[in-house]
């Protein structure tokens, strides 16, 4: 989780990823941010995040992103 928070803060400084739970719904993360985050996560954890995974549920909070990464790691 710490690594994920580090990646998120590196891509979008100034966003409170520890408490925010509507990153997509409230328009805090834009498509450009998401692509940067996906690139970093894929690189760091060796997973493949596809367009189908880009849903609000998967990206609304750091925890949701953490769960997505774990799910994809298990599938790998």
């Amino acid at each position: 989780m710490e690594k994920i928070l580090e990646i998120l803060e590196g891509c979008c400084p100034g966003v409170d990823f520890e408490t925010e739970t509507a990153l997509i719904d409230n328009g805090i993360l834009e498509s450009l941010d998401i692509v940067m985050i996906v690139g970093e996560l894929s690189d760091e954890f060796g997973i493949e995040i596809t367009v189908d995974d880009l849903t609000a549920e998967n990206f609304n909070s750091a925890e949701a992103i953490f769960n997505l990464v774990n799910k994809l790691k298990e599938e790998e």
Partner: protein
Amino acid sequence: MSVNGAYFLLFLLISAVFYYAAPKKIRWFVLLCASVTFYLLNGIKAGLYLLATALFTYLASLLLGKKPSVADGEDPASVKKRDKRRKRAILAPALIINFSVLGVLKYGGFFVTTVNTLIGRTAIPLPSFILPLGISFYIFQTSAYLIDTAKGKYPPEKNPLKYLLFVCWFPQMVQGPINRFDLLSGQLYAGSPLDWENIRTGLLRMIFGILKKAAVADALAPFVADVYSNYQSRSGGVILLGAALYCLQLYCDFSGGIDLLCGASQLFGIKMSENFRQPYFSTSLADFWRRWHISLGEWMKDYLFYPIALSKRFAKITKFAKKHMSPGSAKRVTPCIATFIVFLAVGIWQGPGWQNIAYGIWNGTLMSLGLIWAPVGARIRKRLNGRTAAVPLLIWGIIRTNVIVVIGRYFSNSSSLTQAFTMLGRTFSFAPSGDPKYTLAAYFDTFMTVRLAVACGLLIFISALKEKGIDPIESFCRKKWYVQFAVLSVCLVIIVIGIYANSNYVPISYVYENV
């Protein structure tokens, strides 16, 4: 049939009467009949193109939605893989064919002209295709439907007539918005009950749309058209004014049309996707594109930007960038390139011609630079947060964005790249007027200026309300009857004067009607 004319209002009235008189179960069929009638009134040939697209994408979607056959003992992962390959083998040619129709009809002439120019002779005769009404919109809409069906986002619609209604729902046929199947189809097929609130909201929105179009867009059109036609003899200042007023004209034309047609759709209890969110209040170019032509932006994001940016090829580019650049810069390379490609596509979508490609390059380059600049901007904003400088920074953001947008419109409304550059050159060299008889008063007499000022004042007031999160229609409906009467009277007077006080008034087609 022009959607601005009285015939359209009559058409709406008849359709609404039949719709609400019909049993709920077959109301969708009334909508289909109305939509087909509307489209055929705009041309039989165009109707055939639409029908062909609807039939082709319907059959393709049925193939895409077919469940995979599973052999005894076959591993689920291998079934999934096989099904993915099968769907790709159907989807790719289906999309190519769908977009080829658009490509040939819309860009065939431009392509032939370019080839002939390069060769230096008329090797290929110039084709003359008809451009069916709303072709860009329905091709984009049906392509999104095919991609979503392939992904299993929703099952394909089995009833061909219901699917045809989704494709040709008449309020979306003139200039969009590009509706999504999962958001629109349920409303189309359900058969809405008669709800006076929907009728009232729909009618008010239609009046506002007509006000924008007739009192602002069409009033500015003659001046703007003169500037873009006679740019060689207009002064730099007049050209700048023409480009700036073109932005206002285009906004009132496009969003006015969307208001009119979303209002018309709401008469039947059907809410279409929103296309605008006060774009000229944007504080950055990225913000502008999130507020302008939203349904196209969302389409580009979901079906072009993400697939490109997350492709394996782009992952390789990121890896290469990480080896040769600082980590902060490397992670921005992929989004920058994908953004540039998307805006190039937006430029091409605008229409054939190098000036439109230049328009895409202008926006794509600035958006990409904005992404590179983003960390610096974020640091500045963080430092200024809560201080008095934050407000000037906001105002500066709005001014800077509007300047960028105005410069972009030198390209998008020109008929050639040379014209756009000549106009820019005359503006920035403060070129004097080449026509001593030319005067702005010919276009803006006192009467016209007052009318425009009142309409624009109303427009800014409503936009400011929306920006604050207040629904202007809801707020209007809560006012006393005499306030409502006064506001509606002012609107109607402006519309009527706009149309009838000008003996030369000719209703002008919507700018994006033939895109």
